[in-house]
């Protein structure tokens, strides 16, 4: 998928299993929305094929559209339309819609049903948009950054709803740049960056189960040879990577012995740790390893 000279998504080979939640995880500008919009039939791929439920999203659009639900990243409603009016409108375009009142209540839209769209809060607009995506009882829902800008309560409600959709046999495809969202919600995660697939798997596969990570943050910038000299001090079996000039991450056999060696190295090099953490390897660490950059 290209825009002029810039290639937004390149050589992305991505399969989604039915009745699962699949997360496309990546930083802003990674090509997540482009990927989703190609599946939704908004964009024609420059090369390659896209099939959703076995259908070509461009050529077989009219067959596909009733079967998918779409939540855009923003907008999608008239500024003067009332929240429930909009939801009823989308429902009326489908043959067997959900009960709109129950759905609205479920998503906490009961209080703002008569509020014009432009006066809804960002989180209310997001929830309405999610309701619009599911009201037609689709087989697949594509949700683009579903919880961006939501408060923690609304975020939990949204996660619960997406899980329930999956448990009822709906396939959920979501994009997110929140690693905790992908880790807690998704059955499968595809990590993409700059339009390319970096890694795919279940959360457990990606974080390699219980392997641990040590994060070291120091008060002053490291000496120039810092990652290399620490690597020598720790020996084989661990991997030292600089995050920025004042922090680095150690993966591999990260245990209390390693922790002690890191302390000793700090003392020998006149470096004062601001924090030294031993923790579970998470998707943030995976992303850092793959790209050499942080996710946010």
């Amino acid at each position, binding site marked *: 998928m290209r825009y002029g000279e810039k290639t937004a998504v390149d050589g992305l080979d991505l399969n989604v299993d039915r009745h699962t939640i699949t997360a496309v995880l990546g930083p802003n500008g990674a090509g997540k929305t482009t990927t989703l919009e190609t599946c939704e039939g908004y964009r024609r791929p420059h090369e390659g094929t896209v099939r959703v439920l076995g259908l070509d999203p461009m050529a077989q659009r009219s067959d596909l559209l009733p079967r998918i639900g779409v939540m855009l990243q923003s907008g999608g409603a008239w500024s003067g339309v009332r929240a429930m009016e909009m939801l009823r409108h989308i429902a009326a*375009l*489908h043959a067997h819609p959900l009960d709109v009142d129950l759905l609205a209540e479920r998503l906490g839209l009961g209080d703002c049903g008569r509020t014009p769209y432009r006066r809804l809060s960002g989180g209310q607009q997001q929830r309405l948009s999610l309701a619009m995506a599911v009201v037609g*009882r689709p087989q697949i829902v594509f949700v683009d950054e579903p919880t961006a800008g939501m408060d923690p309560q609304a975020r939990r409600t949204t996660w619960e709803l997406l899980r329930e959709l999956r448990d009822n046999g709906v396939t959920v495809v979501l994009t997110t740049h929140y690693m905790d969202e992908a880790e807690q919600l998704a059955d499968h995660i595809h990590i993409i960056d700059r339009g390319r697939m970096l890694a795919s798997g279940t959360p457990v596969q990606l974080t390699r189960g219980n392997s641990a990570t040590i994060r070291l943050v120091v008060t002053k910038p490291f000496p120039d040879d810092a990652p290399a000299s620490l690597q020598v001090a720790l020996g084989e079996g661990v991997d030292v990577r600089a995050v920025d000039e004042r922090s680095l991450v150690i993966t591999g056999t990260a245990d209390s012995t390693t922790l002690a060696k890191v302390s000793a190295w700090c003392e020998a090099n006149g470096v004062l740790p601001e924090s030294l953490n031993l923790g579970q390897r998470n998707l943030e660490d995976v992303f850092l390893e793959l790209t050499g950059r942080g996710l946010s």
Partner: protein
Amino acid sequence: MSDFTPRPGAAPFLSQVRVQAAMEAKLMLRNGEQLLLAIVIPLIVLVGVVEAAKHLTLHISHRPVDEFTPGVIALAIMSTAFTSLAIATGFERRYGVIKRLGASPLSRTGLLLGKVVALVLVEVLQIVVVGSAGLLLGWSPQTCLAAFAGSLLTVVIATAAFGALGLLIAGVLRAEATLAAANLIYLLLMAGGAVVLPTSSYGAFGHIARWLPSGALGNGMRDALINGHVDWTSLMVLACWAALGATLTARTFQWE
């Protein structure tokens, strides 16, 4: 609590068009500025020119109310089919409404038909309101078949022409620029486009004005309702504008 088991399906095409048309008409009439443009301004213009004609000498050959009521109906049609449609569509593009509906079972044909039906609903309301006001002021239109056919054809073809031109602007410009351009063009055509006043009152410019969509709309309505004629020349002019507008719109319109 809820059952989300997939049960996909599109509503029947005609019921989609019906709900889309009802929604668009409702939003148009709920919006204060649109209502001003659709109903209030034509009423003010009608009463204004009929009253002013009592004190001024105008080059018109019929009673002022008979001359101006068809023109004000023409103005009302222009405001809805051109200005309101352009502004509404411009903001629909801006707010991603067209994009969102593009992912719903409503097809583009359904969306366009919905817009057309909404326009017709609003225009019927306008014709009833302006026509009733005219009758209260003493309007006595021709009621023969040709008057009916001529005015109906004029309204239909003019709606197509102005609608296509409105969509042309809305499909190319940003929403704010559409708002400004659609209002400006409306004002210019209202003042100088021979909608309310007949082309004969514009002197030499009248020969140009009758080829404008506004002049053709006004002349078509006047010829039908004053003289009981079908004004084929004006209908042809409007049809050409409709074809031109539709061709350009089809080439340039961007849904997002």
